[in-house]
């Protein structure tokens, strides 16, 4: 359902969409049923002259059953939803698959700094590529990200990945994604972070292997002037 509106560009985007779809199907059915019963009762039992309302205490077992049965149904469907949701949660947030590469994401008021590992695919080396508000990743490669913030809370959200994680100053939070579609998409800050919260957009650029190699070569700092242009530890509480 979601992918009709927002592209699905990561391996787990489809799984999250499926959980949402499952919940939609379950609660949608019960919602419509409850509304149908509700409006049906209102029309059926509208006041008519000389018809007295029934006296039902709702305390007798056969009356209580009408509440108890939907109650058990709710429990069963709750369990189903919990199982599906937690499965996806583990996939996205708890289990990190082996990474091909790691990027560092540093949030601050009101910009994103992305540290790419560069041609040698290692962070904290001289050829790291640091960009502002633009993250370059390669198609079909598993990435880890290390997320932190320099000042207040921010949130790293990539809607096409269905990924969202708050950045907290003083903490490093790890996560992963694997892009499955090339293109340029929005990165949002989804945690209010001051007056510039609304002007904190960034873009993620997902490239093919060849294009990414070219970008790496074009942007990697020349080793001669590497030291001044690549601060290995900017003031982000990063290693």
């Amino acid at each position, binding site marked *: 359902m979601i992918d009709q509106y927002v592209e699905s560009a990561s391996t787990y985007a489809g799984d999250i969409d499926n959980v949402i779809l499952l919940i939609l199907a379950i609660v949608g059915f019960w919602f419509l049923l409850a509304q149908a019963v509700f409006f049906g009762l209102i029309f059926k039992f509208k006041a008519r002259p000389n018809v007295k309302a029934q006296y039902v205490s709702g305390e007798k077992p056969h009356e209580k059953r009408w509440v108890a049965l939907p109650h058990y149904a709710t429990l069963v469907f709750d369990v189903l939803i919990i199982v599906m949701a937690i499965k996806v949660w583990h996939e996205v*947030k708890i289990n990190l698959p082996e990474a091909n590469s790691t990027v560092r994401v540093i949030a601050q008021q009101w910009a994103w700094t992305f540290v790419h590992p560069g041609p040698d695919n290692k962070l904290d080396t001289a050829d790291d590529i640091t960009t502002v508000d633009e993250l370059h990743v390669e198609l079909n490669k598993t990435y880890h990200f290390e997320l932190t913030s320099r000042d207040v809370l921010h949130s790293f959200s990539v809607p096409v990945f269905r990924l969202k994680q708050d950045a907290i100053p003083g903490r490093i939070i*790890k996560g992963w994604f694997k892009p499955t579609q090339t293109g340029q998409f929005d990165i949002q800050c989804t945690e209010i972070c001051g007056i510039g919260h609304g002007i904190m957009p960034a873009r993620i650029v997902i490239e093919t292997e060849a294009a990414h190699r070219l970008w790496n070569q074009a942007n990697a700092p020349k080793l001669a002037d590497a030291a001044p242009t690549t601060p290995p530890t900017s003031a982000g*509480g990063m290693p």
Partner: protein
Amino acid sequence: MSDTAHAPAAPGSHAVAHASHPDSFYVKIWGVLLVLLVVSVVGPELGIRVVTLFTAFGIAVVKAYLVIKNFMHLGVEKKYVAYLLLTMLALMVVMVGGVGPDVLRHQGTNWDNVAAKKAVEAGLKAGGGHGEHGADHGAPAPGAASPGEAH
């Protein structure tokens, strides 16, 4: 909920309503509390961790029990008051239980509180010696603003 000021009686030796305790009874309780206070101050001086914990916090619980039972007369109060107070305490346990994994611990699944770890490390290093601590008070604990040597 009845009109009577106090529950009729608790079983056993407290069958008498609390108000009829003579003054000397409360003085005795006070004496016990003072003895406990002395123990709780002296105990930690021994420097044994278990003894410290027991004398400091175990005795605090005993003191609290004595005050609640005898001075606040909870023993002869309506039962629901005790349940109410215990519920509030239980809620605090729930809160600490829910918050602890994030705040008490400094790392967990896929996250690492580097600022707190650095603060611990720097604090322990600075506090190695005893005595001249007037000097290090002003220095702010290092944190996220200055990058760490985390891994």
